[in-house]
Every structure is written in C-alpha cells, then in structure tokens.
C-alpha cells in the first residue's frame, strides 16, 4: 500500500516568503506528527495531531509556524515570513494508534531552503 507522502519534496523560498508543506498520511492513521530535521541532527518534534485535534504544539519554534489537519487526514505545516534558520528537512510521520507509543511511519520529507 501507499506510504506517507509529502509535497513538495523540495522548496526554495526567499527570506520573508510564506510556505505551505503538505503531508498525506497512510489512510486510516489517526496520529500525525511533524518533525524538523537539520543537517546532521536527529528529527525534532514540532507538533502532534490525533485525528483533527492538535494535542501538542510545544515544539513549534515560533508563532510563525502553524499546522492544521482540518478533516483528520491531510495536514499542512505553514511557515510565515521564512528565515534562514528555518532551512531544514520537514518530516511528517503517522501512526495507527492514538498515542505516540507505537511505530511511526515517516514520509520522505520536504527539504526547505531559505535564501
């Protein structure tokens, strides 16, 4: 079956531009996570959705970052007024279960470069 998909795979934005990154989780997965992975680092948690409810957004680095999952399936991570420090790979992961204590399936990521 299809895995987690993300689009676009690559995005170049000029500093100050807004970007929107999309995640299509595996069908039926109730849990969805966003991570930010800088070069040579491990993924860093950004936010967690259980169906359409955003239960944890403690990892979002600033109020320029906003995530939504309005119908409990597709999710969008939006970054306003991008800065150079936002350059990273943004990973989406989904899971069958209601809690993060189970296997997470990662998408291929969106590599964001802010120039």
């Amino acid at each position, binding site marked *: 079956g299809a895995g987690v998909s993300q689009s676009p795979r690559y995005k170049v934005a000029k500093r100050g531009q807004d970007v929107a990154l999309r995640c299509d989780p595996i069908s039926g997965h109730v849990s969805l*996570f966003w*991570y930010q992975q800088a070069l*040579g*680092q*491990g*993924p*860093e*948690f950004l936010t*967690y959705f259980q169906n359409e409810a955003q*239960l*944890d957004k*403690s*990892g979002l680095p600033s109020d320029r970052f906003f995530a939504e999952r309005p119908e409990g399936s597709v999710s969008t991570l939006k970054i306003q007024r991008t800065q150079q420090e936002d350059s990273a790979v943004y*990973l989406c*992961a989904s899971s069958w279960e209601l*809690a*993060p*204590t*189970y*296997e*997470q*399936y*990662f*998408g*291929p*990521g969106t590599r964001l470069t802010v120039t």
Partner: protein
Amino acid sequence: GQQVMQIPQYQHVQEGEDFTTYCNSSTTLSNIQWYKQRPGGHPVFLIQLVKSGEVKKQKRLTFQFGEAKKNSSLHITATQTTDVGTYFCAGLDSGYALNFGKGTSLLVTP
C-alpha cells in the same frame, strides 16, 4: 526538558565487525524506539522497548533497555554493507513528543 544523548557520533567498521551505539536519557523514559535512516532517506522504525531490562533481538540486531529505563543500546553482530546508515534512538517520557538523539552514523567498508 528531556535530553537524549547518543554515542558515538560516528563509527567506521570493516564488514564483519560488530557495532554498538549507546543512548542515554536525562530522565526516566516510558519507552524507547530505535530508527534507521539511510543516506538521503527517511527514518524507518526498527523496534520499541517498554519494560525495564528488556532485551529484543532481530536477526543480527540486539536491543537493550536499561534497568532504570534511562539508557538503551543497539548492537549489530557481524556488520554488512547494508547496515550503513544513521541509527537514532528516540525516547518518550510523558506527553506526545518523541525526543530523538543526534544519531550514530555507521559506515561499513567491505
């Protein structure tokens, strides 16, 4: 907040040698997960450990969770070139945030 430290950062072995990576948390974990990320790829789940002192094996891979649930290790016996990649541990203490270590990058030369 919780921090997960991994050592070593890099490891270069000859094919057939063993490899071990260690993970330490500043707080007690409810569980720990291990992921593998190939160069240019995304993290792929390997295993989850939940119980104190738990040991799990997957073919040549052995995973351990410490008695105090603050440390874990991954041991690969007789490495192969297909084992190349970065191995991450990720700990969960409470809440929903899985905290990843910085990973150990394994290079295997034939």
